[in-house]
């Protein structure tokens, strides 16, 4: 288990610039941030603030124009595509807003997919813990099309947890769910951090979702403009209003 003081992933002087000259857009404009292991961090900001770009770069899905991204001790810029794939496979978990699952595989096969792809043996005890935590035991043989939206998202959470990654990135994980199901998913994520010692970074624009996190980072125009520890939904909403004004 990671000690709270270690850094799971971080960005230093991160710039992501699209276009040139007049049409230049700075999606990330000098971001420096560290994500501590065993913590649940939310990244918030208005549309176009660069929060999704930051997450894609942190996860090694996209590359920076300049600056460095580290996962654990590894500088992602030094890796080639194959090494990046391996890093993602063993160190990073993903939960997307929608279209999280491979439609042709069963729930269980989706959960173990990252392990299977890497040829890593399944840690059955951990897998049972994860499956029980998300409450999917009776649904393991079902295809995604036979599951509700909430259930699909729970499978996605379980998949992210299955390989015990160093860090899990969640991109608006509750964006497509109603509030009750959303709350359920967020509780699982909270539980995964508190009780199972996982590290989660979540991009969201829902203050209620952000209130489940240990720490919130606010982004605007590609820069970190504010931070908040142990947030409540009201506090988050308050900061967001100020950003907007």
């Amino acid at each position, binding site marked *: 288990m990671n000690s709270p003081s270690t850094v799971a992933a971080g960005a230093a002087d991160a710039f992501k610039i699209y276009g040139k000259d007049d049409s230049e857009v700075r999606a990330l404009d000098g971001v420096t941030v560290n994500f501590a292991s065993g913590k649940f961090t939310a990244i918030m900001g208005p549309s176009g603030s660069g929060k999704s770009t930051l997450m894609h770069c942190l996860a090694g899905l996209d590359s920076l124009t300049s600056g460095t991204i580290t996962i654990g001790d590894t500088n992602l810029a030094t890796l080639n595509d194959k090494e990046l794939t391996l890093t*993602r496979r063993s160190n990073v978990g993903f939960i997307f*807003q929608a279209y999280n699952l491979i439609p042709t595989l069963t729930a269980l096969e989706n959960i173990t997919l*990252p392990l299977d792809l890497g040829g890593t043996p399944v840690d059955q005890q951990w897998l049972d813990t994860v499956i029980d935590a998300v409450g999917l035991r009776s649904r393991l043989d079902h295809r995604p099309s036979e599951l509700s939206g909430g259930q699909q998202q729970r499978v996605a959470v379980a998949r992210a947890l299955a390989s015990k990654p160093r860090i899990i990135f969640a991109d608006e994980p509750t964006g497509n769910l109603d509030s009750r199901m959303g709350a359920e998913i967020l509780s699982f994520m909270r539980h995964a951090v508190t009780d199972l010692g996982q590290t989660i970074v979540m991009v969201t624009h829902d203050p209620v979702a952000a209130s489940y996190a240990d720490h919130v980072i606010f982004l605007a125009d590609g820069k970190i403009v504010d931070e908040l520890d142990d947030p409540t939904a009201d506090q988050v909403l308050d900061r967001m209003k100020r950003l907007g004004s």
Partner: protein
Amino acid sequence: MAAPVTRLTIRGVIARKWRIFLTILAVVSGVAFVSGAFVLTDSVKKSINDLFATLSEGIDLEVRTSIAFGDEATAERDPVSVELIDQISAVEGVRLAEGNLLRAATVIKSDGEPLRTSGPAFGIAWVGPDGLDGRTMVEGRPATGPGEVTLDKSSARRAGYEVGDTVTIVGPTGKGDFALVGLNGTGKTTNGGGASIAAFDPRTANEFLGAKDMVDSIYIAIDEGADRDVVMAAVDAALPDGIEVITGEQSAEETAGAINDIIDIFGNVLLGFAAVSLFVSAFLIFNTFAIIVSQRLRELALLRAVGASSRQIRTMIIGEALVVSVIATVLGIVAGMGVAKGIVAIFNAAGAAFPSASLIVSTRTVVASTVVGVGVTVAAAIVPALRAARIPPVAAMRPELGFNSLQKNKRLVVGSITTGIGLVLFSVGIFGQPGGTSGTLGLSAIGAILLFLGIASLSTTVAAPASRVISRILPLPFRPMTRSVPGRLGSRNAQRTPRRTASTASALMIGLALVSTVSVVASSVQASFKEQLQGSVTADFFVSNGPGNFQGLPVSFSERLSELPELSAVSPFRAATAQVNGDTKQIGAVRGSAFGQLVDIDLTSGSVESLDEGKILLHRDPARDYAVSVGDTLTILWLNGTEQRIEVGGIYDDATIAGNWLVGLSTLQAVSTATPTDFFIGAKIADGVSIEDARAAVEKVALDFPSAEVQDQAEFQQAQEDQLNQLLIIIYGLLIISIAIAVLGIANTMALSVFERTREFGLLRAVGMSKRDLKRSIRWEAVIVAVFGASLGIIVGIPLGLAVTTALPSTFITTTVVPVNTIITILIASIIVGVVAAIGPARRAAKLNVLDAISTH
């Protein structure tokens, strides 16, 4: 490592089973032709070899005249004297020697009409089942004296005869009536293997078949316990010069081999067609996989995001192709057996009576089918697989980034280079060596393939503007379409994915390019042939055996025609094989005094009559090649070994009917004792005799030659043209199947597009588009794609056809014709193709539930 990729692969195929079905169908058709070709040739060859092995079972040795050169199996040998039979019988170790005699003889059916067979009609000498050849007695007894005959059972039945009836048979010496005393069989069958067999006792046969105390060869059985090699040497020692002895096995192998060669030609036609259909299928496969990849963009990106390597993605797509190809190959091999069986059945229905053979699927058939089926499918899926592997993981969240990676291309450059290389190879292939050898033909075939690939790749660039132009021009006859929403949508959709439009159209392009090429060449050959025939035929009548009968007419026919006062000039046309200065040639033999009045050969020097003085006439091409002119001499080596120095009596320009070499009938008769038959007879009406009277006189003689067909000038020309047309119909028929595959391709692409645009269609329906309009827009899109493909095909095919026409020797081609009618037909047909291909997809689109379609997935 392999497990999840395998699982994903198999699940992927199952999930897309209907989409993949059409792909499988396309591969199946190609593989079926490959396996069909092999199964057919293997099975029929086996049964024919078995048949000849049975027939020659009792024959230990065979004696025949030797030939100076050429193919042992098909050579027209001189006969041997019957006296030799007695001499051989006296050789120690010979148990039995009997003469083998086989000549053309037609059975007249009980209704008076000649019996038509798919094979030849023979009269033979047969001592009965105790003799050496493998015929059997099915009913009654063998013929033992004059006026008796046995027929093979199936011919007797088809002719309406039973044992005891009187049968009329027409042989080389004329007509004769015989009592049917029995029915014979061949080996295990009760028919003559497609031929009709009338068997006489040896003496009757010799007289009736006009063999003049000669036989074709002599069969020998040796004493029990005798050493065959010793007997063979003893027989050989007893033979005069120019006569040889061979073993029974060798004889059977030669005969079977000659038939096997014909079956091989058939197999090769099927293989050639397999190549075209697989080439077209490759486009369909490529397209299907390319579309499947772009449809699964997010899924593939998600796999990448959760840790699949690009290699795993690539392996997965190629794995899917592998699964498809294996299924298709297995089905294709089975379908190939059906193809083989079907072809045998068709031939048997036409009376060929292939000995019923069980189908043979050899290892070679399976290996070749698998290599071809799997190879083509996997090769066609490689590019889509590589493209899939390039999809970045971030596309799982932002699909638009993934599409960018799918659209990178260097098509224009690669396409231009491929087209260029293709053109060069093709030109070198057809122009490099006039006449062409198999090497240069292969080169031009590879060139054509590269050319097609190059054009297919280039067509992406023009797909969008071309679609725009087509959608402007095409609807002119149907005005309302241009302005209507469905029309506009259909046309925009054809333009929006140029790559897909182009590769779908390319499949159709290939089929239609081949059709255009063939039709240009064919129309030109046809027009030239017609022109040449009109220029060269001056005879009023032509007599030949009916179509498909290659046996030739007995010489007595032309002899009797010569005696008719109604005709002024009569000449038969015979053919012989000889070597001229060492090269094997077909030489025609005609009556010099008459031939000049029957066929205008455009003589440039010498005289036609010189033929009767034992001189030779030749076409200007060989005259140039051998550097001879009138008065020079050429050395001719005839098949039986006779060598002659013959003086050139004339040189001519028109070889349409005469061929390249002509000698006089007397020249041929002097060197060969082989029983001659006439290919055809030409005749000119005497002055003052009406056409009707002359024809009546000719027809009267023809009554005694039931298989003969009398044609006047127009009928003769028509018959020659019909023969050419028949060949073309077969070629077109084969090409149509490749077009059918292309139709599958369009249907497939449209179905996939419909699936992809589910939400878009839902939206259209939601805002008020009727089902009918939706269908119309899809149909319109398919028509534009089809017309685009057809236009490409015509644009590529016509120049190819013109190039081939130019490359053909001038003796073939005198005029070049671009068949406008065929081209218009192709364009109209392509519109129909589009409409037909769109039926299924349009119906599916119309069935979509509006709410489902627009609700988030």
